[in-house]
């Protein structure tokens, strides 16, 4: 990790990089950290998705990065502007945990699994293959994507570091 630029992606935020820079987002709980990568051009994008669908948005100006159905197309747009080829883009994702388990859960509390489902169906619709994912469980994750190698590093309190 010497001299690599690190670009942080906040909650309900997205960013794109190229040239071997790292993308990082911290403290994913029920949120999903999704990365898109075109290995040939080395262009990568990461979104920290908070909610499954923009249908429920009640804000005046929608934050595209927040919802699964708007974040993925936006990320793809920004990557193609940089020169990524849509047909080569592959996806990885992590997060979507259910931090607290309760009996008789309402739908709001199942937000993690719903975020994952929504990301998957959006990727399907756009014909973007999902190479690997580490989702679900009941624990938080911090992720870091290396746009040089295409490796997604996942860190959690209980399981340490894992690469996918």
């Amino acid at each position, binding site marked *: 990790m010497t001299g690599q630029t690190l670009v942080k992606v906040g*909650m309900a935020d997205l960013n794109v990089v190229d040239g071997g820079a790292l993308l990082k987002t911290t*403290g994913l709980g029920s949120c999903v950290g999704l990365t898109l990568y075109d290995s040939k051009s080395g262009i990568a994008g990461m979104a920290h998705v908070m909610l499954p669908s923009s249908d429920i948005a009640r804000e005046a100006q929608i934050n595209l990065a927040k919802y699964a159905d708007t974040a993925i197309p936006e990320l793809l747009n920004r990557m193609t502007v940089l020169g990524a080829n849509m047909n080569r883009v592959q996806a990885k994702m992590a997060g979507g945990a259910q931090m*607290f388990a309760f009996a008789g859960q309402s739908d709001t509390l199942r937000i993690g699994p719903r975020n994952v489902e929504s990301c998957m169906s959006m990727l399907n619709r756009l014909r973007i293959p999902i190479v690997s994912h580490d989702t679900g469980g009941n624990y938080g994750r911090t992720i870091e994507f290396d746009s040089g190698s295409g490796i997604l590093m996942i860190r959690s309190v209980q399981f340490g570091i894992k690469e996918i």
Partner: protein
Amino acid sequence: MAEFKNFEAFELDVLKEVGNIGAGNAATALSKLLNKPVDMAVPKVSLLPFEEIAELVGGAEQVVLGVFLRVEGEAPGNMFFLIEENSAERMLNQLLSLRHDEGDKGYSEMELSALCEIGNILAGSYLSSLADFTQLPMMPSVPAIAHDMAGAILSYGLMQYGEMGDSALLIETTFLEDHQSLEGHFFLIPDPGSFGKIFRSLGVGRE
């Protein structure tokens, strides 16, 4: 929801008082449990961007023990009681003589259950005093505990806000015992629709 942007100063003061009363009672309960004086900082009421909320407890990656309760009733919301690992260990030690093995990063079921119960007692006294004060029925749900990154825990309570913006209004109170040897944070995050009810019940409603 634009109304969040224009909370008046006196409304924020009302919410501060809400935090003061609730956390004051919780601090008394904690002090009785530990049989030691517990200090409380002046509550902070702030409308914070999601990104900055975890900064209040040391950043999104700070590992904490978090007890979560859903507040049910007339003014629903989410409540968190967060304690850092060191404080949790001291609490277990003082209260139950449960000695946590320093090299062991995990917590046993017994230890988690004890901490969860502490959170439950404190949240219960917070809410019941709040319910008395506002005359609004408020019941805590069954508590749940997680030992994880603060960002992952707190984001769970922000979903209702996600639909309408990128920030949330929360009432935060810090507990200190014996000059920070034991530190805990209480977060009450009322659902966006609950503020009107709280204000009205206290006679400061607009409309």
